[in-house]
């Protein structure tokens, strides 16, 4: 965990347990913390806006489903908080398969925000999430500001939700409404400082829940976007979503993903993610949830 605090104020989360064995346990963190504090016990408690976390270990949206899928494998109560797969207003079918391609030390994905829509999420998934006993952060997404606002209003009425993560940075839903493999260069909200500000502000005006804007690394200057999100009223930032990328099958000379382009994650992007976090952390004062290539390893 040496890089747990690369700079002051930066929080790193540790997430998907697919690759390495992933105990995700508090004890391990505590032990590490003890090492760094010469045996003096330190608390791992941390705060994100109004949310109190027992420890700073969270899961990244989309890698952990709605937690129930991992219930038999991971002691969910040991997590600091759970972030759900991104939910949209209406159900989404997602992209054409193949949706996953392995690349050197990384994965390309183009799931395309497949999800049951907010109503089914509340009816079916939230019931389980509420019972776990750790803060639940619901990731929300959409094409327009109005969709985010409507989702926010709907979810703010429900009990058991501590915060909203605003996924304004998913690279896989460009043209997602048409169920066709398409790679367009339509702009993401998180690629425009004004749109980011407007969206965060509009959501802020409609909820008291803790807000976390999730930003895209596919920009020239992420600090500007981060500042817009802060100005709009974001309580914390999630850095970063995946890098827009693609892979080609040299035998068939065709793209490997059904959607042609996708998002790169995994250890391959860790140095890139780390630099982004560092850059933003120097300029803004709100907590940062770091992600990108973090796998949990027990040596």
């Amino acid at each position: 965990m040496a890089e747990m605090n690369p700079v002051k104020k930066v929080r790193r989360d540790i997430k998907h347990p697919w690759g390495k064995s992933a105990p995700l346990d508090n004890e391990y963190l505590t032990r590490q913390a003890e090492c760094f504090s010469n045996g003096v016990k330190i608390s791992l408690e941390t705060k994100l806006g109004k949310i109190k976390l027992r420890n700073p270990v969270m899961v990244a949206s989309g890698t952990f489903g709605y937690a129930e899928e991992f219930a038999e494998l991971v002691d969910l109560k040991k997590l600091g908080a759970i972030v759900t797969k991104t939910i949209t207003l209406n159900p989404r079918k997602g992209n054409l398969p193949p949706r996953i391609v392995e690349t050197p030390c990384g994965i390309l994905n183009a799931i395309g925000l497949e999800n049951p829509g907010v109503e089914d999420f509340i009816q079916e998934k939230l019931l389980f999430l509420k019972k776990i006993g750790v803060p639940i952060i619901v990731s929300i997404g959409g094409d327009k500001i109005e969709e985010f606002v409507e989702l926010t209003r709907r979810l703010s009425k429900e009990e058991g939700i501590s915060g909203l993560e605003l996924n304004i940075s998913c690279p896989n839903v460009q043209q997602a409404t048409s169920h066709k493999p398409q790679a367009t260069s339509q702009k993401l909200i998180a690629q425009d400082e004004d749109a980011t500000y407007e969206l965060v502000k509009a959501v802020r005006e409609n909820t008291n829940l803790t807000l976390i804007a999730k930003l895209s690394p596919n920009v020239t200057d992420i600090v500007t976007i981060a500042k817009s999100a802060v100005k709009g009223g974001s309580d914390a930032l999630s850095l970063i979503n995946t890098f827009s990328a693609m892979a080609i099958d040299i035998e068939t000379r065709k793209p490997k993903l059904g959607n042609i382009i996708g998002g790169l994650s995994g250890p391959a992007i860790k140095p890139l993610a780390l630099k982004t976090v560092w850059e933003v952390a120097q300029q803004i004062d709100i907590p940062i949830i770091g992600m990108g290539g973090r796998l949990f390893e027990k040596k």
Partner: protein
Amino acid sequence: MIIQILSKVISNTQIVENYFKMCLDAPAVAQKAEPGQFIYVHTSDGYQPLLRRAFSIHNIRREKRENREQMEILYKVRGEGTRILVEKKAGEKLDIIGPLGKGFTLYPLPSTLYPVLVGGGVGIAPLVFLAQNLAKNQKPKTKNRILVLIGAKTKKEILCKDEFERLGCEVKVATDDGSQSFKGKVTELLEEILAPSSKLQAPGRELKKPVTCSLQPVACIYACGPSPMLKEIAQLAQQYKIPCQVSLEERMACGVGACRGCVLKVVPPPPSPLLRSPQDFIYKRVCKDGPVFETGEIIWE
């Protein structure tokens, strides 16, 4: 219950060129496993390859001396991950998650009807475990009531014939090059067997040569292999109106149903099949809702 453990490799041996059998000490996984389910193996100790590799549970056997259940996988060396597996020695530890997925659901059959198991290449792997279970469920008197069709490229690559025979199955083999038994694809062999006992044979379709088989008529099909083969089997099953389940492969990430990365197009369930437009479909997850599916629900690409 899904578990993640460091299991000890008991043995890892080549059975024919490029095909290996690995035996693992993982009683907790073995006890829960059902035919058609798989384990998800972390082949490397580092980040490359990053993702786990899926292998069907091939065989469960009880080790007499220690009275522990051991589990075998049968794998073909294909790429990076399987090449690392080949190097694993007895005594080394392997990080596995399992048992995962939904396996075969056994059709209830009267004793006058027989199931047929069709395996192509390394697709034979889950069928040995399935045959074990089918044999266990049959009454002793009705032994030898399972028909197994094995498809292989050449005589050298015929897998698991002895295992099936030991379980009392009737085994037929098809080789692509005709180096042993029936020359042709295993799907052709299947049709030779289905057609004579059925009036549903496609008109004008000439059968090569009658295959003698004591187990007719066949009542249901369980199959695993490359997807073009499974697609043909699904067509035969539909033509001959025989229920059929197949085990599919898709590229996976999480393996437990969380990421929706491994999806397959299927026909939406009732209640409104009549209102359904032909283009209508839903996605199911191969890792969690499968890997075994009824062929009737699959929308083939």
